C-alpha cells in the first residue's frame, strides 16, 4: 500500500515538477519551437521541450492540453501543500501549548478550536474568502486570489490539528512510561521530546497525509467555484470547471484528464495516509 502510494505520488510529482513540467513555467516563443507540428501554435502557448506539441490536442483556450493539465496538477499540489503547511504551522504549536499547559492560554486555544470545529472547513474557507474580498477594499491582482485561498484553507484546518495533538499529548503524558520518567526526575520538556514525541510520530504522519488530501480537495473545489485560481492560471479545479462548460461528447479529454489527475493525486495521498495510520 505504502509503496503503491509513494509510486503513484512520485510519478505525479515527476509529471508536474519534472523536466516536462518545470519547462512549462516559462513562455516558449514560437521560433524556439521545433516545427514538427502541422498545427500552427497559438501565440503564448506553453510547450514542453521533450514532447511533441499538442500530444493530446488543444485545450479550451487554444493552448496545449497536456501542458495545461500538467500545469494545473502542479498548481493544485503546490497550493494544497502551502495550505497544509500553514494549517500545521498554526495547529501544531497551538496543540502542543494546549496539551502541555493547563492555564488560560490553553483554555483559550481549546475554546477557539471548539467554536470553529462545528463549521465544515470548506464552507469556512469559502466564507472567509468572500468576507476578505468584501472588507479589504483594494482590488486584488490575479495572484492575490490564490494567496487568499491558500490562507483561508490553512486557517480553516488548524483546529482539527490542534485538538488532535492536544488530545494525543494529554493521553501520552498519563501513560505509565511518562510517569516512570517523571519519577526518575526527567523534566517535563525532556519527557515531551525524548519519550512522547517519538510515540507521536506515526499518528502525526497520518494526520499530515490526511490533511494534505483534504487541502488539495478543498483547493480544487474553491477553484472550481471561481474563488481560487483563475482560468488564466488554472489548477485542476479550474480545469474541471472549464471542461464541464464545454461539449463533453466533442472534447471528452478536457473534462476527463483533470478529473483523472485529481482522483489519482487524492488516491495517492489517501494510500499514504492509510499506510501511515497503520502500525508497522
Amino acid at each position, binding site marked *: 500500500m505504502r509503496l503503491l502510494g509513494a509510486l503513484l505520488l512520485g510519478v505525479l510529482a515527476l509529471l508536474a515538477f519534472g523536466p516536462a513540467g518545470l519547462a512549462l513555467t516559462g513562455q516558449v516563443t514560437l521560433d524556439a519551437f521545433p516545427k514538427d507540428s502541422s498545427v500552427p501554435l497559438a501565440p503564448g502557448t506553453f510547450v514542453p521541450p521533450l514532447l511533441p506539441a499538442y500530444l493530446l490536442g488543444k485545450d479550451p483556450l487554444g493552448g496545449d492540453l497536456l501542458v495545461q493539465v500538467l500545469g494545473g496538477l502542479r498548481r493544485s499540489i503546490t497550493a494544497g501543500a502551502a495550505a497544509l503547511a500553514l494549517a500545521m504551522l498554526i495547529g501544531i504549536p497551538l496543540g502542543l501549548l494546549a496539551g502541555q499547559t493547563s492555564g488560560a492560554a490553553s483554555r483559550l486555544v481549546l475554546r477557539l478550536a471548539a467554536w470553529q470545529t462545528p*463549521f465544515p472547513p470548506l464552507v469556512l474557507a469559502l466564507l472567509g474568502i468572500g468576507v476578505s474580498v468584501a472588507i479589504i477594499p483594494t482590488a486584488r491582482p490575479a495572484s492575490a486570489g490564490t494567496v487568499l485561498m491558500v490562507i483561508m484553507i490553512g486557517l480553516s484546518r488548524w483546529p482539527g490539528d490542534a485538538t488532535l495533538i492536544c488530545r494525543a499529548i494529554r493521553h501520552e503524558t498519563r501513560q505509565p512510561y511518562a510517569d516512570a520518567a517523571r519519577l526518575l526526575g526527567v523534566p517535563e520538556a525532556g519527557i515531551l521530546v525524548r519519550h512522547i514525541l517519538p510515540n507521536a510520530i506515526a499518528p502525526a504522519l497520518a494526520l499530515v497525509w490526511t490533511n494534505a488530501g483534504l487541502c488539495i480537495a478543498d483547493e480544487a473545489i474553491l477553484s472550481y467555484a471561481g474563488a481560487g485560481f483563475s482560468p488564466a492560471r488554472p489548477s485542476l479545479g479550474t480545469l474541471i470547471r472549464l471542461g464541464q462548460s464545454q461539449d463533453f461528447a466533442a472534447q471528452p479529454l478536457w473534462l476527463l484528464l483533470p478529473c483523472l489527475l485529481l482522483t489519482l493525486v487524492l488516491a495517492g495521498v489517501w494510500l499514504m495516509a492509510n499506510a501511515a495510520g497503520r502500525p508497522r
Partner: protein
Amino acid sequence: MFIRFAATRFLQALPVLLIASLVAFAVLPAPDTAGQGRGASGLLPERYAQFVIGAVQGDFGLSVAAGKPVGVLLGASLPATVTLITLALVISLAVGVPAGLAAAAARRHRAGSVIAAFANLAGLLPPLATGALVWPALAGGVATGKITTADNAGFLPIPADGTVPVIVPALLVGLFLSAPLIRLLRDGMGRAMESGFIRFAWARGLPRYFVFRHAIANALVPVATSATAQLAALIAISAVAEAVFHRPGAGLMLFNAVAARDWAVLSAMLLLASLTFTCTSVASDLVSYALDPRTRPARTVLRTAR
C-alpha cells in the same frame, strides 16, 4: 441537570453567533457608497441593530446579482437543499449501517473484504471529479454553456431545462459519506466483539441477539461522537454536489455569491451557516449527553481542559 447542561451549552454558543452577525454586518456595503444599503441613516450601532432586527425577520436586503430580496431567494432555494441533505443522510445511513455491521460480522470472510474495498473506493473518489464526470454522462454530452471569466455574475450557470433529478447528487453525497460510517462501525464492532464483556456474555450463554445488541450499543458510541463532523461534512459536500450538478440551492447560492461578489447574499449565508452549525453542534452534544453517561461530568467537549 440536563436543563443546566443545555443552558450552558447554548450560552457558550452565543459568542459565535454574535461574531458571525458582526462579520455579516461588516460585509454589507457602507450606505454612502452603495446608496441603497439598509439603515442608510444613523450611527454604526444603530445600523447594526437595524440589520439584526431585519435579519431576524427574514429581511437580508437585496441581491445585486439576482435583483431580488435575499429572503425570497433563500425561501426558493432552501427546500431543495434540505431535500438533498435529508435524502443523502438517509442513503448514507441505509448503506453505511448495514454494510458496516455486515463487514464486522464477516471480517474473516471474503464478503467482509469486499465491503471494506467498497468503503475504501467510495471514500477515495473525490465528489468533485466524480460528479463532474457523472453529469455529462447523464446529460448525454449536451453543451451546457460557454467559458466565463471568474468575476462574472452567475459563474455556475443554472440550466433552465437540464436540471438533474435530486437522487443523483443525493446518491453521490450519500455513498461518499457512507464510507467513513462503514469504517467506524466495522472497527467499533470488531473491537467490541473481541472485548472482555462480550466474551463474558458468550460464556454466560446469552442468546446471540443479546450479545450483538451489547456490541452494537458500544460500537455506536464513536459514531455518535463523530456525528457533528459527519453532519458538517454532509452539508459541505451537498453544497459541492449542488455546484457540480448546477442544482439551484443554498450551496450553489453561496458559491455564486462569492464569485459574483453579491455581498447581501454572502451576509445572509454567513448568518445561516453559523446558525445551522451552532445548532447541529449543540444538538449533537445534547444527544451524546443523553446517550452516553460517560460524557456527562467534566469530560464533555466543553471542558476538555481537564
